[in-house]
């Protein structure tokens, strides 16, 4: 019974997703690109980089990248902490 209910909710969710996918704007034709065209035009002069994606990652949205590096740092700390020796506290 519970599984059937879950399956029903799941199917409803899938239909919802398809409705969302179809009603989105058409693929390949972004309606507003003011921010991105600024990046493409000004990356070479302001960030002095040929690779626009890198200039976005490290300059225009550099704070996100600090957060991203922090996420990796967090995960490494977490993994090392979770897999440390028990220290004789085995239950």
């Amino acid at each position, binding site marked *: 019974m519970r*599984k059937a209910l*879950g399956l029903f909710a*799941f199917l409803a*969710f*899938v239909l919802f*997703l*398809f409705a*969302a*996918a*179809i009603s*989105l704007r*058409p*693929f*390949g*034709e*972004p309606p507003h*690109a003011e*921010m*991105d065209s600024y*990046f*493409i035009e000004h*990356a*070479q002069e302001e960030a002095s980089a*040929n*690779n*626009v*994606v890198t*200039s*976005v*990652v490290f300059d225009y*949205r550099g704070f*996100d*990248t600090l*957060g*991203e590096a922090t*996420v*990796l740092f*967090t*995960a*490494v700390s*977490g*993994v090392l902490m*979770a*897999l440390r020796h028990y220290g004789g506290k085995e239950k």
Partner: protein
Amino acid sequence: MNGSLFVNFPFIVVALLLALGFYTIGFKRNLIKVVIGVEILEGAVNMFIVALGYVKGGYAPIYTQAPQEAVGKMVLPTPQALTLTSIVIGVAVTALMLAFAVNIYRHYGTLDVTRVRRLRG
């Protein structure tokens, strides 16, 4: 409607992947498979964001030795940057989940989510 189905084909694929991911999380019993389900969701969302940045007939947004016709016809760079960020975050989440899975296996000797559940009520 019929036209938009074909035009929005990448978005349909994203919806399929999302459904697959949620199915895997909700109905699989092996913990590793559940983690794979989260990874599928991650992939679906990343693909969605990259697909948003595509411009018809666009080139990669890199000026180093680009072809002449690429100027003024580049795909949007922001979604690619966002996807880079979110991929690294996905790697971090997966690593931590697998570390927990290893710990759970060491304690209970099983990865079956219906049998490891000691925390109840």
